[in-house]
């Protein structure tokens, strides 16, 4: 690893490590449902994909295209109907056991009876033998801007603040892979645009120098959001979902809201939009994973 540090804070500036063990490797992964009438329904067509360590990947596509299904397969929450899934070279179940996955959903999904601080602490509390992280809850609360709200209950917070609690809860276990399923979809536009840059600031911060740089998969149906956040945008076709384009984002890091007016940003969003419009003809050829 390039940036070893003995200090409590190790800020990784998004170094993609092409030689490291990939965060995620999918090989011909597909998902087929059986409907009540006994008909087969293809949710995800065979997908082959590699997500490198330290890479922030956005997954965009129309509603119901299988983005969430793909994310759940990677998280080990839905078993695929076929193909191989490897998270840091091992089955997703192993990543769960070692608490190397940080999940954030569209809804905050917080425990209503717990305070903000206790909700953030939840991941550390569960499966305690695997808690290695020295993450200070106080520090995390400071980082997500919730100082002073530690003792509030979720119902007393706004939607944006609740989602920040969910983000802090995912980060508390210091996972090398963040899986974000439309985390800002339920937020108002103003909070949403603010969160784009907040999540980028937070996702690279890690305490554990032995882990690879943090990777993230960010599911969204907002093109500007995908381009603003990701190093790479994967475009999915309507169901059965299939990755039809793999578009690198050229805007340099660290990114700021002003970048959304730059030519690069506008150009990248145009490429993504084109790929979404005509999913059969990839705008940029798929890289051979």
């Amino acid at each position, binding site marked *: 690893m390039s940036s070893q540090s003995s200090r409590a804070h190790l800020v990784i500036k998004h170094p993609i490590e092409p030689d490291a063990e990939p965060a995620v490797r999918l090989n011909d992964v597909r998902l087929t449902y059986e409907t009540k009438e006994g008909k087969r329904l293809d949710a995800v067509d065979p997908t082959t994909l590699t997500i490198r360590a330290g890479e922030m990947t956005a997954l965009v596509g129309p509603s119901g295209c299988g983005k969430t299904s793909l994310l759940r397969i990677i998280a080990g929450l839905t078993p695929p109907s076929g193909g191989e899934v490897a998270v840091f070279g091992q089955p997703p179940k192993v990543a769960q056991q070692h608490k190397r*996955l940080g999940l954030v959903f569209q809804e905050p999904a*917080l425990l209503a009876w717990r305070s903000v601080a206790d909700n953030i602490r939840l991941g550390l509390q*569960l499966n305690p033998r695997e808690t290695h992280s020295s993450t200070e809850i106080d520090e995390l609360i400071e980082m997500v801007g919730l100082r002073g709200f530690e003792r509030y209950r979720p119902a*007393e917070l*706004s939607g*944006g*603040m609740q989602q920040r609690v969910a983000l802090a809860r995912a980060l508390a276990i210091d996972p090398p892979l963040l899986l974000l399923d439309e985390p800002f979809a339920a937020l108002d536009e*103003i909070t949403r645009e603010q969160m784009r840059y907040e999540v980028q600031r937070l996702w690279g911060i890690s305490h554990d120098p032995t882990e690879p740089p943090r990777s993230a998969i960010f599911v969204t149906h907002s093109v500007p959001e995908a381009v603003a956040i990701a190093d790479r945008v994967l475009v999915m076709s309507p169901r059965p979902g299939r990755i039809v384009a793999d578009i690198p984002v050229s805007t340099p890091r660290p990114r700021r809201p002003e970048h959304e007016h730059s030519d690069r940003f506008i150009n990248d969003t145009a490429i993504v939009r084109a790929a979404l419009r005509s999913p059969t003809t990839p705008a940029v050829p798929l890289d051979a994973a």
Partner: protein
Amino acid sequence: MISEPIPDLDTLDGPEPRSRRLSRPDLRPTLTWILPPLVALLLLAVAVELWVRLGDVSIWLMPRPTTVIESFFVDFGRYFNEGLKTLAVSLGGLAIGTAAATLLAAGVAHSQMLERAVLPIAIMVKVTPVVALIPLFIIWLGHGWNPKIAIAALITYFPVLINAIAGFRDVDPRMHDFFRSVNASTWEIFRHLRWPAAVPYLFASLKISVTLSLIGAVVAEFFLSGQGGLGAVIWIEQNSLRLEQVFASVLMLTIIGVTLSTAVVVAERLFSWRLDQPVTAS
């Protein structure tokens, strides 16, 4: 032109005012709630008193409210002691019934097989008037406290079972996914997710069960009049047509019922995280 200052993002994202349902309401009942029913009750008593006196109603049919009150205070020690026995049966049955129902509900919430096996039987018990089993319970469990507690337990059992199952299952699937994503054990999911989710449901069912257990206790005491308790007092006194004793016993039962129900409400406010009531499942 309207030129409002642009609020900064921090205040826009600020907390909403503390919602009312989360601020704990005052436990002290206010006069506005206590006084009107007391006045109504007093007026009713005065009306009955006048009706009995002026209408020359036989005291074998309807005692004067004043003699009932007199009996209640003169014989207070007796009503109190017999009331304690009834209360003990009621609470014993409630404790056993609630514990057994909660345990079974925890099993049912985790196993569809167990649900399919147990729920039809539980519903059969629910539609059967449990008090019909008292003679059997006396044969099986003898003449002591046991048959009475068993009836009180059985009668409280069903509402707790149904509510607890609903509570243990009232779990946000996304939240459940989060627990799974860190490889939480079934026990951890129960302890930190299912159990807290069920607490408001359990209190809702306790409100129903607490009065049911009193019914079970009193009816069982009718059958076991040698064992004491207010049910036994009522049974014995009505045989001698001493209606003021019957009414005084009923008055004591009302006081016990109000006390028990109030205790559940107070406990709920102290121990339940959610103050607005969930929809009960029964």
